[in-house]
């Protein structure tokens, strides 16, 4: 019974993706793959998502740890606040990035611009837009990962002479590693697929979702499918590799 419903559900989820793949031809795929504009968009998506994930890790690992160890209190309020970007429409995330980092609207933006950092129309803008909508996934995963490591193990490590940092690095981090990989995968996948926030902040340089949207808008569905299939395939491959690297539970 469980197997039947699981298979049915998996089939229903995968059906549109299979349909997407048969809606295009190898020559159309090859044409898209050799188009420099498409390659540039793919590169922007994957590189941008990787930077956004790394940036998310820098924030999410200490925040997740602090939440798991009750250093940030009240925990529920903090978790609710930090999850706001995942709950609001993503175009709102784009507005937030613009209002916070654009030299036109904020002193932070003006300060960054004075030092040569611009948000609109740059890769930095893409990364920030991706980061703001995906970082909650990493924070939640990091919190769950560290919560699953008994605090007693850290205390035991410290009672044996490890400093708090070394107890974290030698005990908590390795034991929470799989959970963090899960968080990284979710964050990366969310960042790659981001459209709303990215298009608000930085239409150019184009990312893959923006390119799919533009092709659809200008030339119809047929033209957008090859780029969609390539994006989907590469994302799927990266997803599988990361899962295998992170172990069976990642």
């Amino acid at each position: 019974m469980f197997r039947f419903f699981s298979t049915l559900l998996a089939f229903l989820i995968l059906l549109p993706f299979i349909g997407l793949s048969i809606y295009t031809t190898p020559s159309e795929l090859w044409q898209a793959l050799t188009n420099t504009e498409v390659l540039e968009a793919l590169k922007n998506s994957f590189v941008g998502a990787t930077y956004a994930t790394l940036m998310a890790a820098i924030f999410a690992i200490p925040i997740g740890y602090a939440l798991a160890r009750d250093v940030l209190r009240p925990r529920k309020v903090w978790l609710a606040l930090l999850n706001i970007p995942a709950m609001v429409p993503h175009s709102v995330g784009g507005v937030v990035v613009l209002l916070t980092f654009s030299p036109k609207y904020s002193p932070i933006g003006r300060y960054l611009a004075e030092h040569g950092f611009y948000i609109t129309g740059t890769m930095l803008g893409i990364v920030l837009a991706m980061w703001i909508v995906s970082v909650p996934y990493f924070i939640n995963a990091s919190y769950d990962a560290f919560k699953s490591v008994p605090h007693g193990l850290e205390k035991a490590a410290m009672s044996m002479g490890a400093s708090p940092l070394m107890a974290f690095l030698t005990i908590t981090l390795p034991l929470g590693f799989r959970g963090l990989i899960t968080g990284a995968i979710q964050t990366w996948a969310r960042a790659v697929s981001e459209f709303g926030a990215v298009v608000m902040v930085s239409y150019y340089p184009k990312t893959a979702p923006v390119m799919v949207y533009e092709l659809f808008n200008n030339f119809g569905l047929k033209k957008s499918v090859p780029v969609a299939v390539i994006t989907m395939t590469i994302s799927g491959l990266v997803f599988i590799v990361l899962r295998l690297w992170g172990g069976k539970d990642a």
Partner: protein
Amino acid sequence: MLEVKNISAIFGKFSLRNISFSLKDGKHLAIVGPTGAGKTSLMEIIAGVRKHQEGKIILDGQDITHLPPHKRNISMLYQHLSLFPHYTVRGNIAYPLRWRKEKGMSIHDVARNLGIEHLLDRHIHELSGGEKQRVALARALVTRPKILMLDEPLSAIDIVTKEQVIATIKHIQDTYQLSTILITHSPEEAYTLADYIAIIKKGKLVRYDTKDSLWKNPEDIWFAKMIGIKNIIPIDIWRKMYPLNISSEFTHVGIHPASLQYDVNGPIIGYVQEIVQYPHHKEIIVQIDSGVSLIWQTNSHETIYKGEQISLSISPKNIYPLKEEKA
């Protein structure tokens, strides 16, 4: 010698208040008290993993109050052992040596001493409960600590493993010439493994004594319960069977179940209510008055039946007068 002087600490709504005691080299202390009394907190303060507001900890004349845990020469074994699941047995035992290499023992020596040398390359999840206990003990001993602190080491293990672990702890006490501080709920464990017993109640040290004097003079009902005196009988009921000349401030008598003896002419007469068989002894519940029973612990092979009337006797020196519990 370990000297704990006027330790006070506040943790939220709970506090430890003005705790002082000393423990001579090679002597063993059991800290007993109800759940939440502050036993583990006190142990963590001594180990240096928990901060306190007032008081000093002195080991061999050196003030170690502000030293980090690894410079105190004290090892601590937590109740749940806290073995690191991502390391092998060898990795676990070697872990403390990473931070204090100067005085460590060889991993093989300590593993051989505890009979776990053949397990060194195993993972923690491959070990039995008793093996895990010995690995945790090896890890605590590898740095040659002056004091080994054990937080309820026998609380979550089966009877057979418990006997093995008690034997291992006694072996450690004899072999390594260290002092042990044991936290336990069990009066039997305290009596078996310690020379001194400290009783903590609501964050205060209310009694510190040798186990024998505490055993023979529990003073009031609360202490009697704490040290495992199972029979606490109102004095008027006791006097109906057994004449006793004691001061009026005592309201009850305390009797260890093992102090009672089967005696056909004994003055304590009652009916057998229940017989509970344990591996090495049995406990017989005897009703001596309406609603009042006592427990008799015996190894006797005498055949006793439920409902039967029996007579017991006791030496007067094994009857402990008890006052009402102090607030």
